[in-house]
């Protein structure tokens, strides 16, 4: 008996008309379009060939046909498992939603000894103790944290400068660890600190409880100190000394850093990347300023536009790609999160790039005064007098907080798959809803995307990443590594 069926059996489906699977398309440039499917896989075609495919005129013996079939853009009589595979990828993509909120932010104080003009959280002076969270507030917030069904709980301490209220951080960590003896979640802690007031005692505690440190590093010394003034004018020195101390105490990878782009940064993309390499980081997150807090009041947010930031971003990105070509393993983290969406079925849990929006689902924030907010940006907006995204108070029930209209209404209206322009955008599965940004800039959680700086910035990055991959197989290999980090 022959182990294989006759050749005809395998060719039975060929020749039959193909059906399109759900897809979107958009211009990549004047000559090409990008097709994307439900799982976020993409395929680039010349505009004319793409039109032929969409009009059911694609030659079934062409390479495009095989590629489109393999990537779930079409199905024919020969692809019986296509729908199951696609459904599996879609399920994986939305898997994070089932676990609900895993990230819980505690603003243990709004005090800070820095006086950054771009501060987006509207910090208070060092001596104002009324801006510290109390033990009672913290205890109620911890109860709420463990109401989340997520098996992974990350508690992140924010400020101000959270180390100015380290006694409360210690209390929260010990109480959460004690609670977790019965809860048995995967419990992680992060302190977001400028490291200026870190001590050996603090580092010893961090080592004992495996607390990760996230700090700010805006670039070379002159730029960093200009962006981040403090008494003594030594913010950069404090930051780099702190990074070294954290690594010595906790381990090399237990400290990460983020930068913020100011107008003074725009001409310094390579210098900033070089600073991160010199400090032995694996990558950099090139971040624009957000429209909140002092950044708006001091007009630092308005000091450059989206296009100027994009020039800065792509100069930095291309420099990093060149360094990778020469053997350096270093990545741009924003690109890597988007590439994960483009090149794998997985979704990074980055609040800005989630739809349904990351508010509430991606993070909950407990403010120093007991207010509960849907995200870090929501409390930044509240310090400017806009309480739109305040869900309630730590004294409220968990059900009341996550069922609050202030959460559910913006989640519903901003859902990108049903938002005007986003619903028919081929990049929707890579993007986010960002209701807080659009509320802050347009007074509307959905926002008109033709006027949206968020939309303009991300569309350019999506096209920029795909164009670079299409132009050079080596860049695609580099990006695959970043996507699977």
């Amino acid at each position, binding site marked *: 008996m022959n182990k294989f069926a006759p050749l005809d059996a395998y060719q039975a489906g060929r020749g039959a008309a193909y059906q*399109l699977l*759900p897809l979107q398309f958009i211009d990549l440039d004047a000559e090409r379009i990008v097709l994307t499917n*439900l799982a976020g896989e993409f395929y680039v075609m010349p505009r004319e060939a793409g039109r032929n495919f969409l009009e059911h005129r694609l030659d079934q013996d062409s390479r495009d046909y095989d590629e489109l079939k393999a990537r779930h853009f079409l*199905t024919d009589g020969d692809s019986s498992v296509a*729908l199951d595979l696609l*459904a*599996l990828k879609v399920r994986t993509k*939305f898997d994070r939603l089932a676990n609900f909120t895993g990230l819980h932010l505690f603003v243990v104080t709004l005090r800070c000894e820095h006086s950054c003009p771009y501060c987006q959280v509207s910090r208070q002076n060092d001596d104002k103790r009324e801006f510290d969270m109390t033990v009672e507030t913290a205890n109620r917030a911890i109860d709420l944290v463990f109401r989340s069904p997520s098996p992974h709980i990350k508690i992140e301490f924010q400020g101000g400068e959270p180390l100015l209220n380290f006694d409360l951080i210690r209390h929260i960590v010990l109480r959460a660890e004690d609670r977790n003896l019965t809860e048995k979640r995967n419990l992680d802690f992060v302190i977001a600190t400028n490291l200026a007031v870190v001590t050996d005692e603090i580092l010893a505690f961090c080592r004992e409880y495996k607390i990760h440190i996230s700090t700010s590093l805006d670039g070379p010394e002159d730029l960093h100190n200009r962006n981040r003034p403090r008494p003594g004018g030594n913010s950069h020195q404090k930051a780099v000394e702190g990074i070294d101390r954290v690594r010595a105490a906790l381990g090399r990878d237990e400290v990460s850093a983020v930068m913020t782009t100011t107008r003074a940064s725009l001409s310094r993309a390579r210098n900033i990347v070089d600073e991160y390499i010199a400090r032995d980081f694996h990558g950099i997150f090139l971040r624009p300023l957000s429209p909140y807090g002092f950044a708006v009041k001091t007009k630092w947010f308005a000091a450059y536009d989206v296009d100027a930031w994009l020039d800065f971003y792509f100069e930095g990105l291309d420099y990093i790609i060149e360094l990778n070509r020469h053997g350096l393993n270093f990545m741009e983290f924003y690109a890597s999160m988007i590439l994960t969406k483009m090149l794998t079925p997985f979704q990074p849990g980055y609040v800005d790039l989630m739809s349904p929006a990351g508010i509430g689902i991606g993070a909950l924030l407990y403010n120093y005064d007991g207010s509960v907010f849907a995200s870090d940006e929501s409390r930044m907006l509240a310090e400017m007098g806009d309480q739109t995204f305040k869900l309630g108070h730590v004294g409220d029930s968990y059900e009341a907080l996550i069922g609050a209209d202030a959460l559910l209404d913006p989640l519903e209206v901003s859902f990108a798959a049903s938002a005007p322009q986003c619903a*028919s955008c081929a990049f929707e599965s890579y993007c986010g809803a960002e209701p807080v940004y659009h509320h802050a800039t347009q007074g509307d959680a959905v926002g008109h995307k033709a*006027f949206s700086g968020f939309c303009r910035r991300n569309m350019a990055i999506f096209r920029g990443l795909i164009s670079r991959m299409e132009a050079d197989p080596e860049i695609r290999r580099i990006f695959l590594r970043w996507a699977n980090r």
Partner: protein
Amino acid sequence: METGSPANSLTVSLAKDLYELEAVKLAAYRFANEAAATLEPSGDRLVCTFTPLSANGDMASLEGRFRNEVIDQDLRRRIARETESTRNLILAMAFSKTGLSG
């Protein structure tokens, strides 16, 4: 398509039976940061008038971009209809095996 351009504005006339009204609306929406749009039926035509938001608005280039966008939006809507049952099937399969569906 027929076009005309009264002072400082752009008029594009479309055959009603060639394009869905919704596709034309979506195309006009996309360029709202460049020009205010008015859509008026006129017999078997749909007349789209664009008034630039700023004095130096690029009306000449807007015409071509709007025409292409109308065609693309029309095609997107046709594909969405053509693949609707498959999309619903895939989403049902995807979510039926999670705790999300209750």
